[in-house]
């Protein structure tokens, strides 16, 4: 029986290695300096790159962090500090339910409330959609991390005369900060790869733009468009973009993991 269970685990690990292996094999050959600095060219022409997608991903994910992180960390702090009542239960439950909501629904929500009133697709609508996606996830991980802070720290600060809000911010949140950052990194890694919410908010753009009121390309949108196209050249670029995206996600996840490991391994 141990063998069966080990075999099942082995299959799952194998699936990951297959996917990553394919990514590296198919994508690595297309990556060169041009890939990072040029914008796409017409099909049939060689060369071109995905600079617009890389810049777009960075800008939209950055804006999503600016919008979403304060809300998420605030909600997480609320749940940890004051969330033992009924309202806390409701917020926790809603956050968990929202974590499971399909990202396409968030996309059409952002379309209804942002794109349609504004009259055009824009990167800011895409950023808001991404922020809505990341907020419940980061709120819950923040709550978990702040809960881990021992009560003795809180009581000591209160006994020394700190008001409750100052205890919460300067003592508790600061102690939990590595964990909060880890949760934020995991959330960022997840939204960096999202496509569905950007399909009808940021729409995509063949040109490199940094203006938030314009449609913007992202790596995920690029992979989708190129993967579905009939051109071999574009398929190669799709694989290369997938490799870049996966590397970004991997680096963020590894950094998040390393930060937690260092925390639990060290003496405190």
């Amino acid at each position, binding site marked *: 029986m141990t063998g069966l269970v080990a075999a099942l685990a082995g299959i799952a690990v194998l699936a990951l290695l297959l996917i990553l292996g394919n990514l590296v094999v198919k994508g690595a050959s297309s990556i060169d300096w041009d890939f990072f600095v040029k914008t796409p060219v017409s099909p049939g022409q060689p060369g071109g790159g995905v600079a617009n997608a890389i810049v777009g991903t960075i800008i939209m994910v950055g804006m999503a962090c600016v919008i979403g992180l304060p809300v998420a960390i605030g909600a997480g702090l609320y749940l940890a500090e004051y969330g033992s009542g009924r309202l806390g239960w409701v917020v926790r439950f809603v956050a968990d339910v929202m974590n499971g909501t399909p990202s396409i629904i968030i996309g*059409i929500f952002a379309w209804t409330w942002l794109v349609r009133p504004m009259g055009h697709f824009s990167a800011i609508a895409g950023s808001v959609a991404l922020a809505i996606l990341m907020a419940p996830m980061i709120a819950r*991980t923040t709550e978990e991390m702040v809960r881990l802070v021992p009560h003795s720290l809180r009581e000591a600060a209160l006994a020394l005369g700190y*008001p409750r809000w100052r205890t919460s911010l300067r003592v508790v949140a600061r102690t939990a900060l590595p964990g909060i950052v880890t949760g934020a990194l995991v959330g960022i890694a997840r939204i960096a790869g999202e496509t569905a919410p950007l399909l009808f908010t940021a729409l995509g753009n063949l040109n490199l733009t940094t203006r938030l009121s314009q449609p913007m390309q992202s790596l995920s949108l690029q992979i989708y468009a190129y993967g579905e196209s009939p051109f071999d050249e574009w398929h190669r670029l799709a694989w290369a973009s997938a490799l870049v995206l996966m590397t970004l996600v991997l680096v963020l996840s590894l950094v998040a993991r390393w930060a937690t490991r260092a925390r639990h391994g060290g003496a405190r």
Partner: protein
Amino acid sequence: MTALPIEPIPPATDTGADRDERWRAFRSVNSSDRWYRRVLTALALTLPALLLLVGLGLTVSAWPALERFGLHFVWSSVWDPVAEVYGAAPMIYGTLVSSALALVIAVPLALGVAIFLTEFAPRWIRQPVAFVIELLAAIPSVVYGLWGIFVLIPFLRTAVVPPLRAALGWTPFFSGVFYGASMLAGGVILAIMIVPYIAAVSREVLLAVPAHQREAALGLGATRWEAVWGAVMPYGRSGIIGAVILGLGRALGETMAVTMVIGNRHDIATSFLQPAYTMAAAVANEFTEATTAMYLSALFDVGLILFVITVIVNALARLLVWRVAGNAVVGSRAL
């Protein structure tokens, strides 16, 4: 003595009611404390507000279609933008069947991984394998889709479907021509995508089972496997069912990978080798192409049905998981 930043506590009069009132008063003795709490509460309330707004926005936008087609929308198979007649039955069928197929494949794999990681794996292998499973959850959906188009479908076409057809081709489930994009491909890729979620949550549920359950079984003479299957798993049963339902919730809402491999055809076919459609894929494909207001409203209707189904499934899953593993953020790292 330097001035303390809190107001002095009034002298004690020793009744219990007084002390309770003093504690309640102490909590809000500082106006900045009250403001802090208000700000945090406001930030926290944005989450339920967002959920309500999503539901409201979907219902309002879907209202024309809801009014015109009513419940008939759910079992009509006609999707005719030209004649402005819409019915979502193929999409609902495709969503449910592809998710069910994914569960059938994924649950044994995921439970195997979870049991392996908590019960049987040697210590040194646990962290790496757990990390690998987390990484599977981190792969973006569109990358799965790309891999599905260029690696999985050719693999299915050459190595999986011929033996399946040879063995089971006489059943209606494996008949017909296999083009590549099909319900089977959708189901398999969904299975790979939900294994990490079910495995992570199941693992946390199994870790939450108290050790004395396993120890008692072992003490009564059970083998390791018998202890797991007979003592640990039944204790965590509702949590594991919750984990499976959570995976189902993810599979129901998955958009990009599915739309790239499932064929996107508005049709209900019994055979798994035929193309199919799911609600999320329909919205993704046709939203920007919707030419009339009724078309758009019909798509919002589809989105509303999907939203309601996933909210119910996720709520059920969370309640089940909370029963065993407590209010903790279960599987949060993988989610």
